[in-house]
């Protein structure tokens, strides 16, 4: 090869090297930055005194108020959470933690997502990767991520999915890197997470304040039947949990796996979630990992948090305060060597037997022509037998414990005035001649048999097909 061609090839290689550098720079600066994740990581990196650290995904970020836990336990607590974090990110975040801290306890707050997917959301990587201090931590984090999903390029080119949407995003990211405190002060301690206003209260805690409530967050069972998505402890996730256990043991830190308290309506709609908790608890106990399941916490430890959920997973600040108080109480009792088992139901069955209310109810219109029919959660064959083409079918359902039987009553609404269409009945089926109830408002009440209190739901009808 001629000398000039060789030089040219070197020049070409140098160009691609320069481009790679530019891509790396882009991976740091040309991203949207989660302001509160940045502040959490910054606070974690600037301090060196953390003793009790909660690590998890968004359900940890919104549920755990470390100030309350610190006050109640006398320990320096911190909430190190990144939305969408799975085990890969938890390991990376813990390695980052160990750079400046020697916590005596780490509480890994887990949800089904933590273990049932081998793929950590690219959002978590985007949020955390640019701010990790160590190259080796970054490298290992990337290696774990791509080993699971094979997204080699996507996970390098983060700015493709999570890139700045406008120059201000870039400016904000750059400013948060070089002048984080000043930028945080200038931006103000307010932001929106979707439609919900949030504030950063320090120690990693992000408080959500909204009037929104998860009134209709009830359909998990149905969605999972359709998507075929099942709760599962995947082998790779189990392996990473064991790696995590060993990592903490090597640093002399005790590990507590805390299963977060899912919304009761969610538990009732999707009993497999409770089964998932059971298998995780079993796995932990078999591998020398302490595991506490707050999904089975009794009301005397943890009041019903359902009224504080603003979506199916996350709670507003008041809910976080209640939960944190419960966790602090548990930790104090545990530290005192008290038996905490009486604070939790001993089994799913016990929990379900104790749950003697209907959480929520709803109505669907049955459409025999529809491919995806919400009414299938009723007895499909029975419903089909009722459909004759001349009759409209409205189906009520509710979330309730399988140890109790619900009953329903339908009303036709005229403004706020109720006209009864049925008496209390065990099946939630309302039949009427085709079109008779089109463009009307139906209300259904649901309660457990033998009880007087009921929950209601209004349904605005329209022609189905």
């Amino acid at each position, binding site marked *: 090869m001629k000398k000039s061609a060789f030089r040219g090839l070197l020049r*070409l290689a140098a*160009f691609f090297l320069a481009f790679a550098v530019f891509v790396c720079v*882009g991976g740091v600066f040309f991203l949207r930055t989660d302001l509160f994740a940045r502040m959490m990581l910054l606070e974690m990196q600037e301090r060196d005194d953390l003793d009790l650290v909660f690590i998890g995904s968004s359900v940890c970020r919104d549920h755990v108020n470390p100030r309350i836990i610190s006050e109640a336990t006398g320990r320096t607590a911190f909430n190190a959470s990144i939305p969408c974090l799975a085990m890969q990110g938890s390991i990376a975040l813990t390695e980052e933690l160990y750079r400046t801290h020697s916590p005596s306890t780490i509480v890994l707050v887990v949800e089904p997502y933590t273990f049932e997917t081998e793929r950590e959301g690219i959002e978590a990587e985007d949020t955390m990767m640019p701010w990790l201090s160590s190259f080796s931590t970054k490298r290992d984090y990337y290696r774990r991520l791509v080993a699971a999903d094979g997204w080699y390029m996507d996970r390098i080119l983060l*700015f*493709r999915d999570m890139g700045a949407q406008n120059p201000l995003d870039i400016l904000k990211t750059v400013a948060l890197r070089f002048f984080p405190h000043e930028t945080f002060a200038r931006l103000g301690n307010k932001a929106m997470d979707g439609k919900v206003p949030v504030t950063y209260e320090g120690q990693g805690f992000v408080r959500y304040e909204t009037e929104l409530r998860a009134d209709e967050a009830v359909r998990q069972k149905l969605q999972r039947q359709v998507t075929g998505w099942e709760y599962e402890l995947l082998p790779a996730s189990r392996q990473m949990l064991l790696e995590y256990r060993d990592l903490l043991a090597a640093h002399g830190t005790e590990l507590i796996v805390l299963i977060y308290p899912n919304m009761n309506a969610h538990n009732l709609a999707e009993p497999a979630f409770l089964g998932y908790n059971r298998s995780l608890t079993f796995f932990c106990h078999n591998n020398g990992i302490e595991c506490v399941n707050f999904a089975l916490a009794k009301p005397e430890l943890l009041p019903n948090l359902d009224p504080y959920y603003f979506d199916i997973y996350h709670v507003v600040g008041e809910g976080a305060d209640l939960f944190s108080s419960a966790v602090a109480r548990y930790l104090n009792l545990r530290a005192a060597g008290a038996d905490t088992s009486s604070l939790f139901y001993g089994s799913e069955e016990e929990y379900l037997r104790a749950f003697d209310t209907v959480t929520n109810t709803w109505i669907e219109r049955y459409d025999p022509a529809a491919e995806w029919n919400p009414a299938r959660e009723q007895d499909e064959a029975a419903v089909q037998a009722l459909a004759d083409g001349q009759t409209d079918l409205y189906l009520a359902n509710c979330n309730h414990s399988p140890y109790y039987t619900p009953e329903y009553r339908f009303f036709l609404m005229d403004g706020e005035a109720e006209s009864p269409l049925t008496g209390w009945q065990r099946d939630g089926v309302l039949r009427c001649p085709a079109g008779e109830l089109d463009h009307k408002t139906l209300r259904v009440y649901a309660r457990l048999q033998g009880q007087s209190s009921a929950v209601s739901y209004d349904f605005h009808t329209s022609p189905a097909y």
Partner: protein
Amino acid sequence: MSLTLLIGASLVLALLYYLCPARVRWLLLLVSSLCIYAYAGLAGVPFILFTALSTWAAALRLGQMEKAYRQWLKDNRAALTAEAKKAAKARDKARRLVVMLLCLVVNFGILGLLKYADPVLSLFSARRLGFLLPLGISFYTFQSMGYLLDVYNGKTEPERNPLRFLLFVSFFPQLIQGPIARFDQLSSQLTEPHSFDLDAFERGLLLMAWGFFKKKVIADRALPFVSEVFGNHEAYGGAVIAIAVLLYSLQQYCDFSGGIDLVTGIAELFGIRLAPNFRRPYFATSLGDFWRRWHISLGAWMRDYVFYPFALSKPMAWLGKAVRGRGNAHLARALPAALGNILVFFLVGIWHGAQINYVLWGLYNGIILAVTALLEPAYKRFGERHGALVASRGFTVFRILRTFLIVNIGWYFDRCTRGAEAFRMLGKTLFMPGFTQLHDGTLLTLGLHSYDWRILAIATVLLFVVSLMGERGTDVRAFVMGRRLPVRWLILILFLYFVVATFVGEGTQSSGFMYAVF
């Protein structure tokens, strides 16, 4: 085949190509082309092999017959009378015609059967045969038949080596969507050993990046909007439909020309220059000009093998004479050309598919070109009377916009799956614009968010600027490569970064090339 895979494979092959001994480089190209073709669909391999080998054999036979005839003529020159020579020539021509037609009919027959049987059967609600359509079958069939006709007409010597001819037919970059190459332009380039030329290599890389940008940043980003509106046009007013047609214009151009840029760039990695297939068609000042800039290789094929043979045929000559006899010299000249244009565009429509919308689209173009040819004296008179106006820049812009409008009306027929739908959408565009959909948020619910619109706008402006530079005679690649190193690198890095950051990933409905199915 995934675009990323194609690019990756091309780079690796280019490396191997220059590491190989010079005399076997063309064999490496042949083997890799066949492997890539087999990877894209093993079932297509027998078809391309049959076309290549049957064409090679037929062309060789034609060459042998021609040679034998000339030898016979030479040997018997003294003994032959003029009539005998004429009779012998006619006999030879007839025998050669049989060979040529046989090969032509068989190969076009295969193309017709595979490509058109199902659409035609569906017109009669008959059961579909479900034939597989081999990748690039239209392109390699047209390319092979062009070669056959050139050999028949004595323009090209037949290739003796079947493997070399197979490489001409199957050279992998052009298999996907052309361009339809000429044997005399491409074959020698394929087989001669090229030494590594960094400048050409870099130019090839740059062209590949530009093609990738057009395809993956612009075309694939516009696709969801176009698909949604054309798929559910009843739900949208004429204004939204018009935007969809404009985006289709952009999408189709960037998809096709981007793909061509990409494969031309790939070929340049091997030191091979493919014929240009696009020359900034949306700067055309007339429909005829547009078709000389769009899919140039197909236009040239149609011109050489359909238009001229038809327009210069005996019936057309007779028709011309008959019209001239009635005292209209212009009509006598223009009528064969006008009919030839209608025929050519009818065939171009059919080439796209057997559906009626393609036929309508072809006829729409053919008829406009025919009418334009017939009205030429009127244009000439207008030019003579308003010379200053016609020469002005404003008038050129007007002509460009007028052509753009005419082309875009044609796209209604090209993109709709049924002719009636095209008329309904056109009617809505004209009479039921529904302007409120332009500002009530509808535009953001059709597959493109505001971010996508911004990317599309930036990319389109970039495309326009580069095209304008090209239109003004600047070789944009040479312009970039001629800058000082820091400036050049900055331009390239910023461009590549923009492409990497904004290209639409694969695995979506947008992965394939539109013209790969033709």
